């Protein structure tokens, strides 16, 4: 069953996976090649490598997020297109179908994640690192895997719902952020206090600050560092 689910997942996401696979292999390689060139041309090679890496580093979490979201949407595209009729007619509990589908998508994500790690290794091997600078291809690969998995899981859960559910969720979020901010603006002067947390602060604390699930996107994404 899982094998067939994997096959259908591959069929629905292969054209989505292809550009991500190329980018996952190419980005770290390109980043290291650029850093290597800068190290040769600039007086302080260690500093040059770090400066180039700081420019390239934000692309890695962005790639991980886009990859996770794209594969999650591709995994559900067939079900949404057929209004879930096929899935609902299958003789197995729905949670099992969803778990198998999620597992198949997660397995497919392994391909670009693996290529990202290979690209990182190849990039590191292709450049002579200046003294005092170290490469972290394994750590970055694991971070990329974790970020992709989190983006995939979140997008998969959202995409599992109907358009109506997602619309209501987004409307609820918008009302919470805009309405909450207005309420904070009104309440603060009335209470004579300052620095009440806004809804954005609360979301930030819950989702992005440690131990929020999206904290991994904001961490250190340097392939080489001191």
């Amino acid at each position: 069953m899982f094998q067939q689910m994997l096959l259908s997942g591959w069929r629905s996401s292969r054209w989505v996976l292809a550009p991500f696979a190329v980018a996952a292999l190419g980005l770290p390689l390109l980043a290291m090649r650029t850093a290597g060139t800068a190290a040769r041309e600039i007086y302080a090679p260690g500093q040059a490598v770090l400066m180039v890496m700081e420019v390239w580093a934000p692309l890695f979490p962005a790639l991980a997020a886009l990859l996770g979201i794209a594969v999650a949407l591709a995994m559900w595209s067939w079900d949404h297109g057929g209004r879930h009729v096929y899935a609902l007619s299958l003789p197995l509990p729905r949670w099992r179908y969803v778990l198998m589908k999620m597992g198949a998508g997660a397995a497919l994500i392994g391909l670009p994640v693996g290529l990202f790690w290979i690209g990182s290794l190849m990039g590191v091997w292709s450049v002579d690192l200046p003294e005092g600078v170290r490469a972290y291809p394994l750590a970055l690969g694991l971070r990329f895997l974790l970020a992709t998995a989190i983006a995939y899981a979140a997008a998969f859960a959202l995409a599992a719902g109907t358009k109506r559910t997602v619309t209501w969720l987004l409307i609820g979020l918008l009302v919470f952020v805009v309405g909450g901010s207005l309420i904070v603006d009104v309440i603060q002067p009335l209470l004579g206090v300052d620095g009440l947390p806004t809804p954005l602060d609360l979301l930030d604390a819950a989702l992005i600050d440690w131990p929020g699930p999206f904290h991994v996107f904001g961490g250190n994404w340097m392939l080489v560092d001191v």
Partner: protein
Amino acid sequence: MRNAIETRGLSYRAGSFELRDVELSVPAGSIYGFLGPNGAGKTTTIRLLLGMARPAGGAIRLLGHEVPAELPAALARIGYVPERPHVYGALTVAEAMRYHGAFWPDWDGAWADSLRRRFDLPADRRVSRLSKGETGKLLILLALGQRPELLVLDEPTDGLDPMVRRDVLTAVLDYVAETGATVFISSHLVHELERICDWVGVIDHGRLVAELPIDAFKSGVKRIRLAGAPPEPSDAPFTVLSRFDDGLATGETWVVRGWQDPMRQYFTGAGATVRDVVDLDLEEVFVELLRSSRHAVR
């Protein structure tokens, strides 16, 4: 198990559409035609039966299994052909068969492949590139390959050409002859069902208007041409579905249900003369039944 499908007080509401107290009893081993005009509630009823929508009330039992509590066990014994194709278009025919077969415990791959050859479906062609007729055949093939005890077919031949329609229905009838499976087939193509069904249920505006063996359904409804018809048929031993002036100054035509020949005496006693008693085909019965049910609702 006497009935393959049983519903009690089944109801559902979505917007302005409402399904009210649908009580289906589909005998095991029967070919049950579920008739109704477009929008009557046929597909909604099927979706409720198969657990794809949640009823507002009532009970459903499929092949002895309570739905939704034992839904996976029931679905493992049911072949379903939906109104719209639901198979993943990027798979080839052979892949779609393998994918489908992986989920059903009684999937018969060899037989499914022989059906594929009989239907002349190319194994390596993508589902999205199949013609409408080929897609219809593939859906029937997938449902039959499961070796189901109950086939639920939602307008399976709608939009198909006569050749494909015949191929599809022949395959279903062959399977039924071989296995004694129950078929629940919804359609608005009345003539098509007339040839194959032994039971009929009629739904209109979300209400089950009639459910009975097809012979009783057809033979009990007659068109009677009368001279000197009585003004009020209040004490008649049959149900008057409709009555109208037949265009002649002296005559009227009645469409009645529950007619038996000795009932002619009723008209004689009322001073009327029966000129003619005409059998109706299933489509005419269907139309008259809907007309009368809508009149009664009003």
